[in-house]
């Protein structure tokens, strides 16, 4: 007996396995409710999909067809390659494009099904007899899939800057769109009624009509409305799959397609609510509130181009570090740390004992933010197992490309301005080179003694495990010993360095990589610079509000450093995220996660809004409409009634924005009026945030 015909409760084995795939998929999504289980949830979805493919190949008896395998191999290679190449910033266009591909595939499936249904030769071989229900759904699948494909490509092109992200709006647009849709529908209906001969032509015309409609649908959407559009297209791609599932009577397609359709719909609803639009308005084409006459699209259209150009030129605002402005009171090692351009950190088992890894990470970040070149030199036997230090530091998100093996780092000590040793002893003991007859004689060590200055954070000055006195522990002008628990001494060191002087501040805005500082928008501080720095410094409770401007300026890493800095000052730092900040749902979350902001610091609008009243400081980075208090008061404007983040309730507001022009909605933001409570830092956010950090460390 063929296993496929095994019947249990009226269902074939393939049906039962297919049902399990649906369960696995839904369960996988359920596991996405928490970051802790989400990775496995995604994996479960992928496995379910793989099983579903195998079931289909086997139960349809088509597993031997090479063409199918070739197609899957090509698709897998392209998909895998592009998924690894894409950067987090490019994620919106990647998602949009993938949506489109799914839609395109569904359209082709529907087209083939429709043609096969009208083909006498297929019917004679397979006995396939398509009813009207299958034919109607095939035409619908063709249309929805086609709209998804072309709409997503346009959305992706806008997001990628290949097309202007300005909304394309013209006279009679609504009429044209409706006419195209109507013509497409009529063509589709005709292809149901006509005989075999004209079916192909009519079906192709229907496909073309739906592609045109998809383009018309997407071009009128501007940059800030993209979260709605991308969500909606996501929903479309699911619906298209589901409809083509009807056409071929495949319950798996119907079921999982419907789940995706619901997912996209929920996201669309959330985005709509957050942007004060109804789904009806979106579906009828009223996604864009702007008229072209006063399209103030600066935050979307022109800025990306500008910042890309600036990346290339990469003019640095870094002054040559003016060392030597030190007051005599500053200890030598603090001075050395502030002026250091090249720093090597050497961890040892003492770091693990003191659980000082995160302090080491903070130290590395601090030197990074000051523009110094920071590396970590790891001795092969540091710690208690091979790679121990690497694991500990990876856990606190020290990038692994900062970690250097002994042989690679040893030539660099001679150039280093500063070495910070954290709980390492024998592995840096120069006696290994000289003290014949001792247990460590001949052992390769990290040549920290060659550096210009050495700070050693160790519990005490007793010899290490090998019992050989370490000559570095003798007090000298070059070596500073900070004894005690490394977690404590490192915190103290950080605070002392941050207590700052002029030289350190100057170094602080040196770009750490090629793309950080852009030349075109010179940072200008509109209000006097003195007062707000102290306010920022003294703030105990800080809420950071990121917006798309942060993404444009690529200022995520700077925001993270600033948050770390404020936390080192003892402040409670949270991030308030508006649902439509950015270009797709959760955009800000992804960007901040990429730079290692812990997700429990990220708060949704409803959770963070009650907290603004208590906040000493609201720090806005590139957000505009979503914090515009006019939404509460300015009746008749597009944003009236839109829920916003109540930054105006905070005791002080610092706004890092490119300029003071109104946001996408075109409504002036009253917060941009100079006042004692609001500080505007205009220009590229990556520059202004760096400047803010530099100012902070001088005070």
């Amino acid at each position: 007996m063929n296993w496929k015909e095994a019947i249990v409760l009226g269902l074939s084995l393939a049906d039962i396995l297919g049902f399990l795939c649906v369960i696995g998929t839904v369960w996988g999504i359920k596991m996405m409710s928490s970051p802790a289980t989400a990775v496995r949830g995604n994996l479960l979805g992928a496995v379910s999909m793989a099983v579903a493919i195998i079931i289909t190949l086997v139960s349809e008896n088509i597993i031997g067809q090479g063409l199918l395998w070739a197609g899957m191999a090509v698709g897998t290679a392209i998909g895998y390659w592009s998924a690894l190449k894409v950067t987090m910033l490019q994620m919106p266009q990647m998602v949009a494009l993938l949506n489109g591909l799914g839609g395109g595939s569904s359209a082709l499936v529907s087209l083939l099904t429709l043609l096969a249904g009208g083909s006498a030769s297929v019917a004679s071989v397979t006995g396939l007899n398509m009813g009207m229900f299958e034919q109607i759904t095939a035409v619908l699948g063709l249309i929805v899939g086609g709209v998804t494909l072309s709409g997503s490509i346009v959305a992706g092109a806008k997001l990628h800057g290949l097309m202007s992200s300005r909304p394309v709006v013209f006279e009679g647009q609504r009429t044209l769109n409706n006419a195209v849709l109507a013509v497409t529908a009529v063509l589709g209906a005709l292809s149901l009624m006509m005989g075999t001969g004209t079916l192909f032509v009519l079906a192709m015309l229907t496909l073309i009509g739906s592609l045109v409609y998809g383009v018309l649908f997407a071009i009128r959407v501007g940059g800030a409305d993209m979260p709605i559009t991308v969500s909606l297209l996501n929903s479309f791609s699911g619906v298209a799959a589901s409809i083509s599932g009807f056409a071929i009577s495949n319950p798996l397609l119907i079921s999982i397609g419907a789940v995706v359709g619901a997912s996209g719909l929920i996201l669309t609803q959330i985005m709509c609510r957050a942007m004060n639009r109804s789904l009806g308005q979106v579906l009828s084409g009223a996604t864009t509130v702007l008229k072209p006459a006063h399209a103030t699209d600066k935050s979307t259209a022109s800025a990306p181009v500008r910042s890309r150009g600036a990346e290339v030129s990469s003019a640095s605002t870094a002054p040559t570090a003016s060392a030597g402005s030190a007051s005599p009171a500053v200890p030598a090692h603090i001075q050395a740390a502030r002026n250091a351009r090249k720093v090597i950190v050497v961890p040892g088992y003492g770091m693990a004992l003191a659980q000082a890894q995160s302090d080491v990470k903070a130290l590395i970040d601090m030197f990074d933010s000051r523009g110094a070149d920071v590396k970590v030199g790891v001795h092969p036997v540091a710690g208690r197992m091979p790679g121990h230090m690497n694991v500990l530091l990876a856990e606190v998100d020290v990038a692994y490309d900062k970690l250097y093996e002994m042989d690679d780092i040893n030539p660099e000590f001679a150039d280093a301005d500063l070495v910070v040793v954290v709980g390492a002893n024998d592995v840096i003991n120069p006696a290994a080179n000289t003290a014949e007859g001792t247990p460590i004689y001949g052992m390769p060590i990290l040549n920290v003694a060659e550096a210009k200055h050495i700070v050693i954070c160790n519990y005490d000055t007793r010899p290490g495990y090998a019992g050989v006195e370490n000559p570095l522990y003798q007090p000298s002008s070059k070596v500073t010993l900070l004894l005690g628990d490394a977690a404590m001494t490192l915190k103290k060191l950080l605070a002392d360095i941050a207590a700052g002087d002029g030289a350190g501040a100057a170094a602080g805005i040196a770009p750490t990589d090629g793309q950080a500082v852009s030349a075109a928008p010179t940072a200008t501080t509109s209000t006097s610079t003195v007062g707000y720095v102290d306010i920022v410094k003294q703030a105990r409770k800080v809420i950071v509000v990121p917006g798309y401007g942060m993404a444009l300026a690529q200022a995520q890493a700077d925001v993270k450093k600033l948050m770390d800095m404020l936390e080192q000052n003892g402040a409670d730092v949270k991030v308030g995220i508006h649902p439509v900040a950015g270009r797709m749902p959760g955009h800000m979350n992804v960007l901040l996660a990429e730079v290692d902001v812990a997700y429990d610091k990220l708060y949704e609008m409803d959770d963070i809004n009650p907290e603004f009243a208590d906040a000493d400081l609201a720090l806005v980075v590139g957000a505009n409409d979503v914090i515009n208090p006019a939404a509460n008061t300015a009746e008749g404007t597009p944003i009236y009634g839109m829920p916003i983040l109540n930054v105006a309730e905070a005791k002080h507001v610092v706004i890092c924005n490119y300029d003071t022009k109104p946001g996408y909605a075109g409504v002036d933001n009253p917060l941009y009026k100079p006042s004692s409570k609001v500080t505007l830092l205009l220009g590229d956010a990556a520059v202004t945030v760096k400047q803010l950090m530099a100012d902070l460390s001088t005070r």
Partner: protein
Amino acid sequence: MSPLVLVILFVVSSLVGYKVISAVPSLLHTPLMSGSNALSGITILGALTATAIARMMDNPVLAQIAGFVAIVLAMVNVVGGFVVTDRMLRMFHR
């Protein structure tokens, strides 16, 4: 299966999906979107069966090319979506 059963399946799946997805926090909305995006590539199943019967159609070469393209597109969607989601989710940490 009869159209009615399929329509019921569609409705039930939508409702279950709606319920489950509502529980996903906005923190993870981007990975949710790219993950569900990968799932929309389930249309690969349709692409496979449609391509398999394409060679019996009136214009087998053209139909098989269309089927091949459908498989490639769906597979890019599936693999790209899952891998990208995995990359993102692994960045989230406390």
